[in-house]
């Protein structure tokens, strides 16, 4: 197969992990977490720094990045006890801006806007084909684990929290712990996605974890549908299909980036207006 297709498929797998884990927080639990991309960046930077600066093996790096993001995800769930809905969403957007500032300003570790170069792919997966297989397996594992979680009684507790926190609480569910568990899982998987991204592109800078990936993730999760993992995968595929079809218009390269965002956002607005559940979603934006 030609390398371009492999490249796109790898990105689709990575974004599928991001969007599925975002859906766990946003669609199932009702915690709109714009800071998700901040966690994605933390995962990527952690692994990049550990492998290039401290020569850690990939396996330990990916595990520590996942665990770190899980912990930060858990911490992010704490303010949701007092700060609800759109206030929580904007607060997490603030978290994204803070992580962005850390990536830019903590130059000793992150090399600031220069970014980190020369991140190696793990042993045995240096070829694009084998790396695609690795990310595909990761996406598949994520899907099955999250499918298991969301279909379990615990998943129903999460959906009860989304629909009505008070009712869930009065039924004796520990909603704080449930939210924290959901955010921990969500953080862990997006951290893994960040690691895969860093080792796939082999170069990261603060701009890679800024508003562009947020736009993609948000568009995919809403278009595909909230509270549906299959919807998330479908959303990612649609978003990438839309974005890659722009290549055939032979636009000047400076126009492609903004055109892409404009297209995503128009599709997103149309979906919000005419089908707020998304294509195969089960929950409304509430």
């Amino acid at each position: 197969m030609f390398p371009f297709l492999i490249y796109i498929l790898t990105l689709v797998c990575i974004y599928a992990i991001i969007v599925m884990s975002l859906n766990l927080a946003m669609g199932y639990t009702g915690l709109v977490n714009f800071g998700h991309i901040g966690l994605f960046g933390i995962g990527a930077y952690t692994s990049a720094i550990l492998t290039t600066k401290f020569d850690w093996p990939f396996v330990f790096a990916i595990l520590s990045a996942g665990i770190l993001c899980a912990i930060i995800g858990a911490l992010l769930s704490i303010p949701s006890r007092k700060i609800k809905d759109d206030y929580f969403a904007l607060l997490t957007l603030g978290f994204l801006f803070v992580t962005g500032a850390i990536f830019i300003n903590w130059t000793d570790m992150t090399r600031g806007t220069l970014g980190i170069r020369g991140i190696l792919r793990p042993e045995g997966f240096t070829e694009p084909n084998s790396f695609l297989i690795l990310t595909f397996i990761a996406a598949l594992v994520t899907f099955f684990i999250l499918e298991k979680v969301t279909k379990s009684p615990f998943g129903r507790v999460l959906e009860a929290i989304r629909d009505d926190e008070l009712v869930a609480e009065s039924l004796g569910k520990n909603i704080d712990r449930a939210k924290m568990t959901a955010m921990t899982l969500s953080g862990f998987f997006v951290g893994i996605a960040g690691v895969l991204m860093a080792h796939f592109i082999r170069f990261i800078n603060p701009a890679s974890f800024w508003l562009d990936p947020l736009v993609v993730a948000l568009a995919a999760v809403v278009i595909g549908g909230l509270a549906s993992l299959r919807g998330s995968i479908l959303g990612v595929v649609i978003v990438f299909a839309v974005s890659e079809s722009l290549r055939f218009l032979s636009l000047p390269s400076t126009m492609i980036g903004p055109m892409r965002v404009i297209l995503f956002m128009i599709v997103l607005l149309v979906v919000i207006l005419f089908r707020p559940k998304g294509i195969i979603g089960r929950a409304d934006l509430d």
Partner: protein
Amino acid sequence: MWIIAQIFINAIIAGSVYALVASGLTFIYATSRIFHLAHGVVILFGAYIFHFVWIEQGLSPILGVFLSILGSVAVGLLMNELIYEEQRKRHAKRLAYLISTIALLMLGTSSIILIFNTSLKTFGIQTTVYRFDQLNITLMQIILIVISCLLLILLSAIVKYTKFGKAMRATADNDEVASIMGINTRQIRRLSFGIGSLLASIAGILIGLEFNLDPNMGVYLALKGFTAMVIGGVGSINGAIFGAFLVGLFEQIAVWYFGAGWKNSITFVLLFFFLLLRPQGIFGLKRFR
């Protein structure tokens, strides 16, 4: 000691711009219950049109101001009519408005990049610098503060003394009752979007003249305006103005203490602590949500 005085002066300059942003946001929030973050883009449109007409085309600045107000108001009203009002018809929830306003914010930012391209825009205006011992303030900055104060006074006068202001306050209190009493709430929302966008275009022009223009500014301005709103207590215009100056002050302290790189993220630390510890804002007149 002079550095503290200089920090205060800079805070007042930044704060008076943020006050315009935050009061516009509050004005719109009061009637529509939407955190209109896409306001940041409305500001940018004003600023870029002014720059385009005056600097790039070399036409008169008065025409630039006129066209920039026209452009911003048109963009603001279009957002309201095409998106928010349509959503309102379909009984959208608060989060749906939030997602769509963020979509509009990104859409607008990218359109600006597409239309005016990404290069940094400067007006390159040098005005007289007044020095008092070691303190500096330029004529431009004094004009900026004066214009913004005048506009804010005008705004509170509109809210307090005109018939529209009365109808607006009624809508803000309870739009259902207001519409039963014969107030055309849709018209009121339209007007508040119009006035808010007008303020935005002037804020944009002042920002352009004082700082440089870059397309990412819209996002930051919107979030700073929102933070100012939360600090003052969501829904109160005076609170928002106070919050704007507090944001300006904290920003300047952060720049002085940590360096310019942290300027934009300090706002969120402020937002975080206010949401957590005093969600009703400093004045706390309105109940949270």
